[in-house]
Structures are given as C-alpha cells and as structure tokens.
C-alpha cells in the first residue's frame, strides 16, 4: 500500500530551482497496475525514483505499508529496496561480466542468502521468464527481449511487493516487448503491485489506471481502457 501526500521534489540547477514534482497526492493499493504517462521532463522518472526509495521528496510524506519513508535512514532504505521493491530499466542494466543466472543471483548474494538456496531460486526465477536454457549465457549473447526478461527475473527473485518499470519496452521490438508485457501482467495477476512509466499507449492501456503527469503535477487520472481520452492531450503536449 503506497500513500503519497503532497509530495514535491525540487532540484537546484545553477541558481534556478526546478520543480520536478509538485503536490502529488496518490494512493496505490497492493496488487494494482498503474501506468505513469506524460511528456519528457514531466517528472515521471523522478516520481518512480521516489517510489523506489532511490530519491527522497523535498517535502511531503510517502507512506509505504504504514511506514514513513522520509524518516528512514540510509540503511533502512537499503532494506526497503532489497526486500520490498524490484526495478526494471529501459536499458536492462545487466552486469556484463556475469551470466544470466549470476545476474539473477546478484540481489540474493548481497542479501546474504545461502548458496544452495540461491541456486534453487535462480532456477525458479529464470523458469518463470522462460529462460532456463539461457542461464549460462552472458548478456552480450542474449537478445534485447531476453535481457529484459533476465532483468525481470532479477527484479522479482527477492519476491518484492512492488515492481517499478521505467520504459520496460522502450528498447525492444514489438514482439519481444509483448512477451515482456505479458510476463509483467502475469506477475501483477499474482499480486505484485506494478508501476510502469511509459510513453507507449499500448503499454499503458494494460494498466488499471493511468496517471498523466504534466510539469510535475498529476493532470489526469483515467482507467486503462479509456486511454483514448488522453491520447490527444499527450500528443498536444509533445508538440509544445
């Protein structure tokens, strides 16, 4: 359960304060599928970073399961990221010198899980994304879609409550993008809260709700199947 109250994030760029997020109020229930849309520079990624505890709001309160994130110290935030949140990135962020299986194993190594247990969970996570046969391949030997599926296995191997995806299909052709989206949907069906930042209406329309960010504010909230209502608005914004 995520509860954002009057979240603002201001960056200092030279002498100018830049308001990346302004007065965000939002609740996201456990198991919801939310898409965040908006033109470039609207604050989508900043919002995702705050949700993922990689960044802190300048003002406002972020409750995650009845805990105030702003009050947590660095070590506690690390634990939140480790156990409650999974990340998927546009550029996969796989470690190139490690095989697919080793990439998936990475969070469990640093969480101090015993080796024998890790092996079983890696196999399970790779199986869930259909890549058991590619376990020993290095990222360079995998296609873009396969890389993103490895990243997905890595993001979920610690069994988080929330999965944050930043343009997960932005670097994929439509066929492998669809495979990744189907996997995300399935994980969401199993109870994972899914928050996706995207430009792509085909990605966003799968969501329960779509938040449209403009200039750091939530401008519209629509259901996923009513995406047509906001397409014109997004097109306008992109032109300006």
């Amino acid at each position, binding site marked *: 359960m995520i509860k954002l109250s009057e979240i603002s994030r201001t960056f200092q760029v030279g002498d100018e304060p830049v308001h990346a997020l302004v007065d965000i109020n939002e609740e996201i229930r456990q198991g919801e599928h939310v898409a965040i849309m908006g033109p470039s520079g609207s604050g989508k990624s900043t919002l995702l*970073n705050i949700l*993922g505890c*990689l*960044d802190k709001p300048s003002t406002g309160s972020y409750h995650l399961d009845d805990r105030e994130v702003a009050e947590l110290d*660095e*070590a506690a935030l*690390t*634990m*939140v*990221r*480790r*156990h409650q*949140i999974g*990340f998927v*990135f546009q550029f996969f*962020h796989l*470690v*190139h*010198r*490690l095989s697919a299986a*080793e990439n998936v194993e*990475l*969070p469990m*190594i*640093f*969480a*101090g899980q015993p*080796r024998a247990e890790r092996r079983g969970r890696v196999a399970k996570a790779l199986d869930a994304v259909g890549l058991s046969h590619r376990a020993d391949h290095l990222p360079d030997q995998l296609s873009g879609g396969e890389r993103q599926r490895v990243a997905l296995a*890595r993001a979920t191997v*610690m069994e988080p409550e929330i999965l944050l995806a930043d343009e997960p299909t932005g670097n994929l052709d439509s066929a492998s993008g669809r495979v990744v989206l189907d996997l995300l949907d399935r994980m969401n069906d199993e109870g994972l809260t899914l928050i996706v930042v995207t430009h792509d209406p085909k990605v966003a329309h799968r969501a329960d709700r779509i938040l449209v960010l403009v200039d750091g504010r939530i401008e519209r909230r629509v259901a996923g199947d009513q995406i047509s209502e906001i397409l014109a608005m997004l097109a306008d914004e992109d032109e300006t």
Partner: protein
Amino acid sequence: MTLADLLRFSLKGLTGHGLRTALSLLGVVIGVAAVLILTALGEGARRYVIDQFASLGTNLLIVVPGKTETTGTVGAGGVPNDLTLQDAEALVRAIPEIQRVAPLTMGTEQVAFGERRRQVAILGTTYDYMLARQIEVARGSFLPDEEMHRGSPVAVVGPKLAREVFAGEDPVGQIVRVGGWRMRVVGVLAWQGVKMGVDFDDLAMVPVSTAMQIFNRTSLFRILIQSSSHADIDMLRDKSRRLLTERHGEEDITVISQDALLTTFSGILGALTLALGAIAAISLTVAGIGIMNVMLVSVSERTREVGLLKALGVGRRQILSVFLTEAALLSTFGGLIGLVVGWLAIGALVRIYPAFPAAAPNWAVAAALAVAIAVGVTFGLLPARRASRLDPVVALAGR
C-alpha cells in the same frame, strides 16, 4: 553477504578487465620483487664481507703503527715510532697467552725467472702467518718455521705468478730473482683469490727479514696476533698495547680486533640493506598509486553498476567492501607474484655468481608483502568510498 561471496564477486570484477588488472598487478609485482632483490643484494654484501673475515682467520688482533685519535696540539703527536721485528719478538716472549705472532711487511718488486719478469706484491712474513690466516699451499711447502730475524733466501709464489713466470715448468726448487736477490722457490699457494684487497694468487711471500732486506726497511707494516681463545682477545689487546707503549715510550700504535671490524662492517651493511629496502618500498608506493588509478577508472566505468547495486538493495558498506576487496586482491596477488619473481631473480643471480651469497632476509619478505597489501587497501579506500557514496539516481543514469 559471506566472505566467500564477496571474494568471488570482487574477483569477477577484476577478471572482467584483464589488461587493466594485469597492468596494475605488474606495478605491485615489480615493487615487491624490487624490495626482495635489493635487500638480497645488501644482505649478500653483508654475508660476503663476513665470509671474507672468516676466511682471514679467527681470534685475531692487528697491530697498526700510529694512534688513531685526535690530538689537541698541532704537531705534538709527531711521527710514530716504527713497529719493528723486535716488537714482535717481545710480544711472543712477554705474553704467554699469545698463541702466535706474525709480523708483516709489504712492497712491490719484480720477480724474474729467465727472461720472464713480473712486477708483483711481495709479502714478508713468517711460518705462523700461514696458520693464522689459514693459507693453503698447493705444492711444496710454506715458508720455513724459523726465527723471525733469520731470513732464508726462499720464496712461496701465488699460483697466477707461477703460471705466468714459470710458463708450465714446476716452480718448486727453481731459483728466481726478486729484485736483486736470488731466492729458491719452496712452494706454490693454492688458488684463493682476493682477500681484503690483496690478490693472493699473484704475489710472492718471503721470510720477513728477507723482505726487509729487499726493501731496505726496518719497519713492519702490521703485526698479527692470534689468541688461542676468543675470551682472551680483550685481555690480549690491553697487554699488547701496554707492552708496545712501554717499549716505544708513548702510545703510538693501535690494536684492532678483527671482531670489532666485523661488527662495524656488519652494522654498516645492515643499514645499507635497510636503505635499499626503503628505496624499493618507494616503488611499492608508486604501485599503490597505480592501484588507486585503476580503481578510480574502474569506479567511474562501473558507475551504472554501482547504481544498479544500490537499486537492488546493496548497502554502502557492501559497495565499499566490494571495491576495497578488489584493491586488496590486486595488491595481494601482485605481492605474491612479486615474491615468486624476486626469488627467481635472486636464484638466477646466485647461480651466476655463486661466490656472492645473495638472499632476501625474512624481514624483507614479510615487510614487502605487508606493505604491498597495506598500500593496496589504503589507496583503494578513496575510490571505494567514492563508489559507495554515489547517488543511485545519478549513477543509474551513468552521469
């Protein structure tokens, strides 16, 4: 995170960049090997000198004319009295604890046999010199065991002199001319090389009185005194000094114990070894800077990876320990390889120059490795801290 996991992950971080890792390893290897080789050379020099002293005989006192001290009034010291044969004979007579006394005089003179001539060092001494200095005779005999002032016209020649002047003939029994004097050769020395600056292979030895006649000289160069036991050395030195002071009317001689010389030399060369080690340690510091450089490059190249690790819930301390471990692994491996390279180089040196007993002292081996590891960790700290403090958002963007 277990230590085994940490080591495995850090090791992969290093092997992922083979060339870079190898180059910074090389720096440490050279540094550690340099410490080993240089200290081995210093230690070898020390042992060499000790061996030289040992080969000159033990429990020896050396009487040198002149007093080594600074006198207050200019000119008051004057020219010291000569050391004479009578002094040497008096020592034998007056001090019963003395085992043997060998007077010594030196000069250069031409040794001629037929048409062949060679200018060499002439050492005038007695039979006891052979015993005190442990000199070996290859053929014939040494100088006759006779009274000091009886100078027989005989000579013992070094093996090189024998080869050069006699050209294949057996020198023993031949008559040679030493300066204007005719001498019968009674023996040839064994090959023994240069000892304390004197080439024992290329000289002639004659009875001390004979030598003094050849050089037309009444003074001795040195008097060697050998004690039968080490414990008597100090007592003998005092007694000898007192006796000669009495005979000369003033203290114008110096009695040196060989042990004192040896201790001094050993101390000097030990300090030299230490200094060489310290110089080599500088190269280890340079290697440390190399490690820091490589780690900084590594951190900036792996900024995204650090960002990813942070997103995956890896703590600051864990990131710090990953990079520190990499630096420590680099310096440890480099140090170990350096030890092997150093030992191989020293082994090769000893094989080429067997007479030079080069060997790295244990303290240098331990210190080289310890300094290498310490340097790696110390210089790894800055890059590791930089990595651990990266802002995850900025790092993920690769900025």
